[in-house]
């Protein structure tokens, strides 16, 4: 930057000057002594606008025409803002679309008019003579560097930074530890409660009715017909203070299969009810809702990363990045025939975490 000796040289043969002698190692580069000589800049190319005054006038008219167009675009944008308002009231999508489109057209014409006009001006009417400028090594000159070193030396002597080791070391130490409060102060980003405990429990407990998402109406076992799937939330979720947080853990899929299609483990046989099974909807990979149920293959698919779970086999993973099966919610029916949870999930739902096992 601070090189005052830079001069812009009109492009002629003088542009090609002999390379400065090698100051830096070329490494393994082959420096050929018999390389071709640089032929220098080719002669300047004359444009039609340089040769023909009529063409030049046309070009100038085009440029100002484009700028006029831009003004027209600006005016149109302002008018469009007023004459294509968003109509208040229902189903105003069309008016939003008109407003967006016409305002946008006005603005883009205004911008493109200036832009294309300026570039066209620069290309056709401004000088097209290529100019050459010399480069200099980025490295400061020896004198500059010596001066800089001198400044550091003087300031070192004046401050005693190098000499007074205790001061220097304590300063470095103090600086090094000073950001620590900022780290500590991040603690209250979250409440005091232990996340591991929270992650291990959901709203489900013994006797909680399974209800439809989003209406919250309870589900009778007889409602769940063969091949159907219910998106389920626990009863009372709507009244919960942390509705979304609880829903993010408690969302459940309820499906009915033919009992003979279910291959249930001995100890989990009574977790289902007449072929009705309930599984956590939260993927064990990174937590997307695994909501795609194929009633013929009895497979569940996660739309985010394509993990697939086999409902007939306790939702074991049959494809994709997830490892663990979806946790099963043990269910039964209450006296009125409504489906209820037997307990909470027997393991934390959702993505794995360090303290999980």
């Amino acid at each position, binding site marked *: 930057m601070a090189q005052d000796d830079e001069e812009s040289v009109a492009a002629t043969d003088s542009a090609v000057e002999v390379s400065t002698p090698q100051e830096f190692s070329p490494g393994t580069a082959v420096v050929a002594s018999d390389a071709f000589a640089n032929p220098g800049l080719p002669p300047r*190319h004359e444009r039609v606008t340089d040769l023909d005054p009529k063409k030049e006038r046309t070009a100038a008219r085009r440029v100002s025409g484009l700028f006029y167009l831009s003004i027209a675009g600006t005016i149109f944008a302002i008018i469009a803002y007023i004459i294509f308002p968003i109509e208040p009231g229902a189903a105003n999508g069309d008016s939003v679309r008109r407003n967006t*489109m016409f305002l946008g057209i006005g603005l883009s014409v205004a911008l493109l008019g200036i832009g294309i006009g300026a*570039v066209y001006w620069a290309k056709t009417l401004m000088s097209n003579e290529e100019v050459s400028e010399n480069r200099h090594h980025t490295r400061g000159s020896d004198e500059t560097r010596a001066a800089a070193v001198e400044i550091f030396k003087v300031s070192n002597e004046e401050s005693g930074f190098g000499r007074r080791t205790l001061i220097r070391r304590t300063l470095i130490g103090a600086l090094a530890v000073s950001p620590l409060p900022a780290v500590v102060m991040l603690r209250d980003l979250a409440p005091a409660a232990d996340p591991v405990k929270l992650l291990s429990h959901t709203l489900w407990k013994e006797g909680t009715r399974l209800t439809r998402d989003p209406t919250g109406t309870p589900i009778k076992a*007889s409602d769940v017909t*063969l091949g159907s799937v219910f998106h389920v939330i626990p009863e009372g979720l709507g009244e919960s203070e942390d509705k979304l947080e609880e829903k993010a853990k408690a969302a459940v899929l309820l499906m009915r299969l033919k009992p003979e299609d279910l*291959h*249930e483990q001995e100890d989990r046989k009574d977790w289902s009810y007449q072929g009705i099974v309930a599984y956590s909807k939260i993927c064990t990979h990174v937590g997307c809702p695994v909501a795609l149920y194929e009633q013929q293959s009895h497979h569940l698919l996660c*739309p985010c990363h394509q993990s697939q779970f086999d409902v007939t*086999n306790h939702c074991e993973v049959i494809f994709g990045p997830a490892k663990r099966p979806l946790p099963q919610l043990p269910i039964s029916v209450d006296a009125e025939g409504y489906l209820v949870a037997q307990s909470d999930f027997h393991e934390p739902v959702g993505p794995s975490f360090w303290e999980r096992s």
Partner: protein
Amino acid sequence: MRNNTATKLRHGRSSNRRSPLATVALLTIGLMATGGAYALFTSTASAETSSASQATVQEGQKLFAANCATCHGISAQGTKEGPSLYGVGAASVDFQVGTGRMPLAMQGPQAEQKPPQFTQEQIDAIASYVASLAPGPAVPDEKYLQGNGNVAAGAELFRINCAMCHNVAAAGGALTEGKFAPGLTGVSAKHVYEAMITGPQSMPVFSDLNLTPQQKADIISALRYNQENASPGGFDLGSLGPVSEGLFIWIFGLGAIVGVTVWLSARAN
């Protein structure tokens, strides 16, 4: 494979422990409960089916024997190639044949929509024949197909029950093993309703006990709202989400701008 055998073994053990009669009894109770519930909730609509004349049923039987029996069996009992149609109801026939999925053109991951092969009258005839075999979901009542339900409620139900497969903008999406959930643009309200109550192919059944007829009507209204109101932002690029947006900006956005840079740095004539 290993899993399969293991679970089969478990299954074998369990049936030894419990009396086989108990399974049969449970099954019967379950089936009766489901069937009864179906009958109860679809009774309004099935009145229409029962009034279908014997002639129509016979006409349907002929069409069935000529076009469907190869796979579904001469009395719709099912064969290796096609499932039994007992209890699938008129709605199922109307959907499958009315959207051209049946008769199946070729074996594939799933039956695909194509121009229907029969007139609506013929479809109705086959439907009444199949409905006469065993009770099943009937063709829906017109009043649920008008699209005058609660759009907001329908849109929410759609997001919870349908969007995971069909995409929030009903543009469709992928399922496993080459199957896919089709886009719903241009699908008639009747066929959408029938698909919900019959659960064609991979799609789960959304019986009236899961989504009431009114809720289904709301979903249909929300779908209609979406179809009738073009995206306020302009062309929707297939409503496929960020992937199509990313491709668009790379190909057309950056493409156009690179074109400008070439013009800008080219020497003028």
